[in-house]
């Protein structure tokens, strides 16, 4: 039911204080899992993802009154979630004195230690390959491969040109392919 509610309807209900909470509930029902998986695929650890998801929706609640309809709602929400993930990963690197472009070791550790990890061997291998990618490349690949987003939509989320995104995606594919073949 909630999946059929349009973004326009949600935004209009949110503008009214009487229906604001209802609108927000509808928003949550429609996008909470998408936002969660988007975050989870980036930070790997469930507890970290849980904290970040709550932070993301709190920010959405605070900033939704100022949202302009010049962009799609879900790309706007994805942008907030992406920024929160990048901020979280950067903080983690700073805390552990890790170079900012090298978080793969930490994520690999999270993959190994994650309690909530299932799936077959190939899926695990893919995740292991993904954590070796830089954050931006990983984001592009996740949104393209798992969410099937168009380059224009990804461009709205990341603020990067379509051409750069295509190049980044192709590079990520090459790296993953090489990783999967080398670890066969």
């Amino acid at each position: 039911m909630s999946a059929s509610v349009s973004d326009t309807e949600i935004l209009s209900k949110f503008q009214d204080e009487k229906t604001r909470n209802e609108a927000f509930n509808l928003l949550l029902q429609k996008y909470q899992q998408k936002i969660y998986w988007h975050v989870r695929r980036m930070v790997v650890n469930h507890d970290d993802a849980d904290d970040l998801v709550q932070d993301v929706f709190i920010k959405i609640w605070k900033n939704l009154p100022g949202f302009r309809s010049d962009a799609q709602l879900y790309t706007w929400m994805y942008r907030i979630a992406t920024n929160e993930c990048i901020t979280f990963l950067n903080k983690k690197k700073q805390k552990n004195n890790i170079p900012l472009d090298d978080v793969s070791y930490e994520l690999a550790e999270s993959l190994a230690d994650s309690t909530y990890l299932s799936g077959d061997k190939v899926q695990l291998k893919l995740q292991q390959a993904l954590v070796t990618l830089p954050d931006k490349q990983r984001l592009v690949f996740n949104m393209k491969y798992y969410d099937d987003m168009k380059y224009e939509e990804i461009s709205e989320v990341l603020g990067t040109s379509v051409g750069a995104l295509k190049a980044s995606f192709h590079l990520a594919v090459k790296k993953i392919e090489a990783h999967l073949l080398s670890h066969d």
Partner: protein
Amino acid sequence: MEIDIEHKEWPEDNSWRQKLPPGNPFGVPAGYFDDLSERIISGVHFEEIKQADALGGLTVPENYFTELSNNIQSRINIEEASASETEGFTVPENYFKQLSSTIQSRIVIENALANKADTFTVPEGYFDNLSSNIQSRIAIEDALGNDAESFTVPQGYFDNLSSNIQSRIALEEALGNDAESFTVPQGYFEELSSNIQSRVAIEEALANEAESFTVPQGYFEELAGNIQSRVALEEATNAEHNVFAVPEGYFDQLQQNILSHTAEQEAKVIQMPSRSGVVRKLISTAAFKYASAACVAIIVGVAIYVNQAPAGSNHTYLHKELADISTKDLRTYLESQSDATQTERKVIADDVQLDDESLRDALQDYVDAQ
């Protein structure tokens, strides 16, 4: 969101994608999504409460908001600097968590200083170095505490230390001012080393020649007496004095006479010093000295005696006594004392007439010859 089936953005060769199973390996706790929305809504309400009561029941330090913008800007600059560093730049653990409290403390201190600027001042940069100074002091006192048994100072040492240092400074200044009281000749220090070396060479030479030059034992003690004796002798033998006269050719025979008199005494050889300057050790004993003095006395006595004898006199005491003795007594005496053959030879040699008068004349000649 509808999935766009006609993907023209994928690589042409994406066969590997079809090998991958759909979905992802990540799992979630059971019922996680059922209460996720409730938890999110609770978080949102909590945020609302915080915003609504932000000013109620809670206070902020004085002038907090006036300084807040500067603090935030500083925080932003720090985080931007940290984020822009690609590798190797980190901050200490919990730095940012403590930064705000550190800044607030600094603000309080500076406010206090500003209020009391006329009364209390501190050196420039004092607070910047204060923490490091305190830590150094703590380290020192810890070390002192551990070495309490090894390193001690006299009681009251540190109390008197400043006055001692000042006295020392005054003393050294006074010494510096007195530098003009003590002077050295010009070029003294430049020549000092060569002078010392020369002195050392001389002393070494003297030490090596210590055995070349020696004097007899007690020589210097008797030297004065010897000189005086020599002076008396020289005066006594001085021709101008002219008290004693000696026979002609007397001194030519003198050495022979002296040697014949001193032949029995212990003879000592005196070597004259060689040209190289080495003086042989004189063998001088008391006997030699006495012999020398005796020789001198004999010479003087003979000289006196010779001078006192009347010239051309033949009547000695012996002649006088012999004139009173009879011829018979003389004959008896000569026969008992002299060898008969000796007399016979003389008579035969001299063709002496054996009568009384001839005999008396012969005896007279004999006595004169003695």
